[in-house]
């Protein structure tokens, strides 16, 4: 009796915490919707008197080339690194070659390194092969540094598939590629969703690679946003509207595919 009553007290901290998590969202939305005449800093916490979409239109005009740059980098990078991860995961879980168990942790380590420790050679290398400054180079980088986590997620998933399933197919005369294509690939769709949205989010939110490897016209949206919000030049209601635009794609993914997002998040701590 006592216990069940005390449970309802829990709503007080839960709601207070919810407010804490929502404050930045509130400020972004409310400020973004305000017109130029009511952006006085004194009134920053008040709701807008009229709904005004001008800031969002203006922010979109300013950021749209960079939003498209991000999309053009993120989509191919997420798709290709997921496909590679699936192949690697299959081999490392079900078709091990000699040394596979040594290779796997070596690949995994790649997702934990501070990327500063590869930046100097990366810039030199990209310069040498002529990919420095452009988007294809950034795609390549996201694919390669995405391999560890995509491989991990798929390997853990394939490892949970009973070997009997594969043995049965082998007896029926299926080869390695046949087993991968006809048996494992069709049941990997949920894992593909997990990995795709995780890679999408990671690459969309990346700042370091983009700021080091791209020239100004190829900036991704995080770099562009950081540059327009550095000072007083861009009015702050525009900065808030721009921040919301930059956050929107990954937020939408989270809102609609949250369950898969969570699984990707847990995979990152090796807790498949």
């Amino acid at each position, binding site marked *: 009796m006592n216990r069940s009553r005390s449970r309802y007290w829990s709503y007080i901290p*839960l709601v207070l915490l919810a407010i804490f998590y929502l404050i930045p969202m509130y*400020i972004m939305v409310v400020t973004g919707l305000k017109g130029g005449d009511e952006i006085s800093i004194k009134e920053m916490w008040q709701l807008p008197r009229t709904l005004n979409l001008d800031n969002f239109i203006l922010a979109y005009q300013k950021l749209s080339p960079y939003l498209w740059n991000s999309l053009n980098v993120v989509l191919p990078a997420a798709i290709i690194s997921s496909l590679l991860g699936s192949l690697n995961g299959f081999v490392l879980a079900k078709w091990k070659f000699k040394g596979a168990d040594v290779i796997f942790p070596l690949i995994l380590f790649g997702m934990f390194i501070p990327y500063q420790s590869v930046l100097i050679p990366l810039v030199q290398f990209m310069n040498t092969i002529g990919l420095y400054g452009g988007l294809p180079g950034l795609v390549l980088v996201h694919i390669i540094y995405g391999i560890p986590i995509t491989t991990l997620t798929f390997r853990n998933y394939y490892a949970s598939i009973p070997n009997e399933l594969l043995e049965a197919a082998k007896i029926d005369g299926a080869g390695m590629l046949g087993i991968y294509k006809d048996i494992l690939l069709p049941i990997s769709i949920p894992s593909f969703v997990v990995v795709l949205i995780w890679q999408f989010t990671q690459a969309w939110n990346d700042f370091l690679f983009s700021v080091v490897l791209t020239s100004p016209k190829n900036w991704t949206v995080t770099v562009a946003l950081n540059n327009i*919000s550095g000072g007083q030049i861009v009015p702050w209601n525009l900065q808030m509207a721009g921040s919301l635009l930059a956050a929107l794609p990954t937020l939408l993914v989270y809102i609609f595919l949250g369950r898969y997002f969570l699984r990707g998040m847990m995979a990152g701590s090796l807790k498949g």
Partner: protein
Amino acid sequence: MRNNKEKWLSFLLVFPSIAAVGIFVYGFIGWTTRVSFSAWRGMIPDYTFVKFKNYVDLFVDNLRFQIDIRNTLMFTSIFVFGTLILGLITALLLDQGLKGEGFFRSLYIFPMAISYIVTGVVWRWLMNPAQGSRMSGLNLLFHTLGLDFLNSSYTATPVWGMAFIAIPAIWQLSGYTMAMYLAGLRAIPDELREAARVDGASEFEIFRFIIMPLLRPVTLSAMIILGHMSLKTFDLVIAVAGKQLPLDMPSINMWQTTFDAHLYGSGAAISILLLISTAVLIIPYLFYSLRKEGQS
């Protein structure tokens, strides 16, 4: 015979990935290490071997790097501790089977989906240290609510400024620890708590002597993951604070030393130290996780 051929084929399938990771991770780390032992400064590579000079220079008479170390320690301890505590509290609150649990859970995790840059830009406005008639952000909110004692200079606070950058970081990642703790709590069988209750244990005793010890592995994993993230913190600090010396981090120092000041040898040395400090955390964790997996 056929089997053998497929063994080769399987290796060929993963070879592109192995080669890519081999070059872009290990090859490049080796290359950076070589640069860190070189006299390279300026635009043109110079691989003259200078032994540990770049490293020694960082520790002797380099004020900026000392600030980096201090800031890293301050930021890491507050960020890791705050994220663990907040994650644990939210997980415990949500683990009671309350109505609306799913809603609160999703709400607490959503910051994970946002980039550090967006988080940083918004929190920079929230943590505006201006006072008096120019007061804004959280200070203004506190003032309006009559909570003036919470008024703060945030990142402009002398000595402790870095601690305030941990606030947006905690905001962003506490949902992640909450999810880890929730998974841990769900794995504890109800019978265990029931048995303790029958034996007359109070709810606090159950938490202290049964739940907490069972959550220890989760805490350890979370500490390692958060710890290594915090060593690498880069975008968030840039977006909140720009590039200010009192709020510098090794990751930012490396970036500016290398690509703005063109002191490649020194920049490489910073990045290798950063790598070593993360590796010390991550390598044992990797081995432990994989061995445990092999046993189960």
